[in-house]
């Protein structure tokens, strides 16, 4: 089953084309990693998938993105509604600083006026459990979200994204601000989450891509060079440019 079908996607910032004709499919309930050198358009690519791209200045795109059979840029798709189906986790952990852990966990519902006060606690608990954070915070739910450690904050951000019950979770280098221990925790979490969600993760670290993903796409200068099964891509890639990149021949 396909979650996303991306057809011939190109994207620009002002005159500057950063994605050229990217076509790929993303399978339901798998983890897909996007790798590539800095500035190759990884972030831009996933920001297209929840229409965050269009919020940037001078941003423009062409091509088709089909989510669950629906055109993402179709008339009946409201970008605000779309973003509830396609959650996102950012590079730097960024819980809302003025809210408690509890409120942060349900912030997606708070912000969209869908929170019944009676449900608040149970929703927060379930989201925090899914994000493997519940046991660490259950005794301090009313402390501010920023009082947590970096890795915990990032899991809180994941819980926040889970609470709105998305189908897809986009992650833009979710571990690059974390130490190896926190990183291992998040990677394990991703491994659990992909049973229920479609996950697309951008990462600088090939090793991380190899660890967490089922499929890996390699982008170079905005062009999709190769998308393969992760195990295959890292042991015997098809394209020699992929081979060069993953074996460290950058020259």
């Amino acid at each position, binding site marked *: 089953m396909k979650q996303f079908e991306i057809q011939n996607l190109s994207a620009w910032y002002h005159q500057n084309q950063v994605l050229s004709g990217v076509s790929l499919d993303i399978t339901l309930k798998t983890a897909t990693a996007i790798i590539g050198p800095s500035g190759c358009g990884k972030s831009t690519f996933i920001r297209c998938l929840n229409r965050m791209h269009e919020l940037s200045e001078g941003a423009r795109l062409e091509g088709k993105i089909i989510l669950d059979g629906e055109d993402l840029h179709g008339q009946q798709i409201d970008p605000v509604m779309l973003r509830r189906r396609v959650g996102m986790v950012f590079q730097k952990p960024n819980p809302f600083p003025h809210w408690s852990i509890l409120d942060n966990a349900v912030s997606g519902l708070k912000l969209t006026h869908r929170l019944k006060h009676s449900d608040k606690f149970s929703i927060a608990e379930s989201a925090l459990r899914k994000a493997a954070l519940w046991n660490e915070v259950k005794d301090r739910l009313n402390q501010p979200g920023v009082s947590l450690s970096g890795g915990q904050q990032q899991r809180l951000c994941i819980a926040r994204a889970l609470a709105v019950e998305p189908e897809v979770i986009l992650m833009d280098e979710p571990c690059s601000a974390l130490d190896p221990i926190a990183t291992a925790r998040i990677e394990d979490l991703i*491994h659990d989450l992909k049973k229920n969600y479609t996950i697309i993760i951008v990462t600088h670290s090939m090793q991380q891509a190899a660890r967490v993903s089922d499929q890996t796409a390699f982008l170079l200068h905005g062009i999709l060079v190769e998308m393969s099964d992760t195990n295959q891509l890292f042991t015997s890639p098809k394209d020699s440019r992929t081979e060069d990149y993953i074996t460290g021949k950058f020259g």
Partner: protein
Amino acid sequence: MRKKHTSREYESELKDLKSQLATMAYDVKAMIHDSMNALQKKDIKLAEEVIERDFYINQIELEIDEFCLIILARRQPLAKDLRFITIALKMVTDLERMGDMTVSIARRVIKLQKMPPVKIPDKILLMAKSVQEMLQLAIESLLESDATKADQVLEQDDSVDELYHQNFRYLIKLMAQNENLIEPLVHLQSVAKWLERLGDHCTNLAEFVVFKVSGENVRHVSRAK
């Protein structure tokens, strides 16, 4: 209590690899047992079955190899984990080769069928028993990360070699006594050779386990004496 990897997936991958190796080794052990049974009982069908089973052993070798490659690519193992993966890569080769040897034995069983019957010397049966014990010990030492069991394997190999040499002289004598039996006896000598080699491969397995557990390389040390 042994500490676990923070990444549960990794932990389970390593466990998987270990149990796959053990399963393969048990399969090989069963093949040794069955091929020797076939030899004793002149059971062609069993011999053929052993030959067939080698196909799966080959498959498993390839699978474990690939699995190791994937773990190396995905996890960048270090220290004990790294040693484990590299010995796994080597152990499957040994195990596969051991499978081949049981096939060779089984083939001899079929060939012997068409020749004048010979009695299987006790020494050969003893060797077979010893080799199976060694393999069992090697598997246990792997599963339990127990270097002392591995050491026992190394010791036992010497007795297998001794049996082989005694058997060799005995067979040569037999051949000289009865020239009709030369061909089947040469085949039996081959079987003995395979069993001796099986013992050597068990030794290899045990040496690898020692390396994994302690980081110490005992290869070519034990043999030198």
